[in-house]
């Protein structure tokens, strides 16, 4: 059994559990005194202000912040002590939206989305809506955490779910340091189960992708090279196969922000992000094609804005009033954390955003 870190920032009453406090930090210091340009100033320099949405492609629904893990870098501040869970009533509202959306991808996230008691019922209903790509972001260890989750690979297969799972490294040491002791071994077992039902196998239509994010205050390396390393190591050491690796930059919010400040890496990390600013990444950044829905039905430009409680800049801010044509006419809400998505090759829930 994995020995995991126990408590979220919220439970520990850490000041960074507050979205306002995080925004205060992101708007002060090096950004207030002009040492570094703000994100708004930077995108003005490249004539990309205000940031506007393009065609809606992805509906990302966060079904709750409860998780069986308490990862060091988690931008959600998820953990077993988080009780924010989407109700069946809100899920039904989501189902109405899913039936009528122009988006081709539905992306369920959390926490561990599988811990929502209505998760399976919701997946079953949502899968009937004819969405082209139905993603569930599974942390892998949930499959091994309790008997009631052991059959998740078969369940995912039944509904042709595209499984996207976190795997910070192909070695035990680096993985466990970020995600908790024992997580690597549990993740390998879960991947074996997924491979056994056909997920991630060459030529298989059952898609299994892994998410890599750095283990500290540095940016992800080249996604294609990392994918090659991951594939060869996981195959050689454990006979594990998967399709693609998504390299995601850690954004300076929540637990990762707490880590950056505590380890005195915050300023240097922000410098790295700003210096790696890539206007081409701004073109395709995920908030331009995504709407994020929180457990309580509020709407955001992305999951990161959701955690900072930066609601959509629209007269429509809740799923009860959902209207895609009105929502398409808005400016995207930005702050300094956005530099995380525009650094280098860019970063999104689908990995890099430039080729």
């Amino acid at each position, binding site marked *: 059994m994995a020995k995991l870190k126990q408590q979220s920032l919220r439970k520990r009453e850490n000041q960074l559990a507050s979205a306002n406090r995080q925004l205060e930090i992101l708007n002060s210091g090096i950004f207030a005194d002009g040492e570094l340009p703000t994100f708004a100033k930077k995108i003005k320099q490249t004539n990309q202000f205000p940031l506007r949405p393009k065609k809606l492609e992805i509906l990302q629904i966060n079904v709750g912040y409860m998780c069986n893990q308490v990862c060091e870098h988690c931008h959600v501040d998820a953990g077993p002590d988080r009780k924010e869970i989407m109700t069946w009533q809100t899920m039904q509202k989501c189902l109405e939206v899913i039936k009528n959306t122009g988006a081709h991808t539905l992306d369920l996230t959390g926490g561990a989305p599988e811990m929502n008691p209505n998760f399976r019922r919701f997946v079953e209903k949502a899968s009937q809506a004819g969405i082209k790509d139905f993603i569930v972001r599974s942390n892998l260890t949930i499959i091994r955490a309790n008997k009631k989750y052991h059959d998740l690979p078969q369940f995912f297969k039944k509904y042709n779910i595209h499984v996207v799972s976190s795997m910070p*490294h*192909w*070695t035990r*040491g*680096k993985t466990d340091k970020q995600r908790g002791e024992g997580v690597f071994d549990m993740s390998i077992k879960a991947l074996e189960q997924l491979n056994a039902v056909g997920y991630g196998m060459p030529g298989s239509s059952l898609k299994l992708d892994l998410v*890599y994010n*750095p*283990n*500290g205050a*540095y*940016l*992800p*390396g*080249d996604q294609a*090279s*990392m994918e090659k*390393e991951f594939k060869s190591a996981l195959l050689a050491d454990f006979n594990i196969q998967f399709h693609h690796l998504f390299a995601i930059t850690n954004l300076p919010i929540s637990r990762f922000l707490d880590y950056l400040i505590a380890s005195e890496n915050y300023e*240097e990390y922000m*410098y790295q992000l700003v*210096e790696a600013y890539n206007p081409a990444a701004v073109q395709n950044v995920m908030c331009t094609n995504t709407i994020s829905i929180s457990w309580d039905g509020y709407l955001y430009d992305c999951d990161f804005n959701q955690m900072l409680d930066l609601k959509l800049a629209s007269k429509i801010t809740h799923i009860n009033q959902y209207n895609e044509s009105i929502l398409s006419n808005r400016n995207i809400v930005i702050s300094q954390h956005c530099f995380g998505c525009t650094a280098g090759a860019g970063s999104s829930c689908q990995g890099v955003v430039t080729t």
Partner: protein
Amino acid sequence: MANNYYDPKDLRKFGKITQWSEELGNKFFDYYGKVFEEGALTAREKSLIALAVSHTEQCPYCIDAYTKDSLERGVTKEQMMEAIHVGAAIKSGATLVHGTMMMNKVNKLEM
């Protein structure tokens, strides 16, 4: 001038080297960038070589930069330390192999 010779913040100013000699500076950075591109060696292998050489050259800026670069490329700390030992072994070997000069000289001079 600061009170210490090395300041980590100076690494950020490296690109400004071009300001006082634009042509040579740009030629250097073009060459530098090209050297580290994927080629017969991967960018990851090159990063590890750079890390080892950074230590033999005892360049704090380079150690800072290539430790981070290695981490970004997924290199483990065990691999990084082994690379440094390669550099250290060559550095000490290079010292020791000169001992043959001393031996030659002693053999020539002594009766």
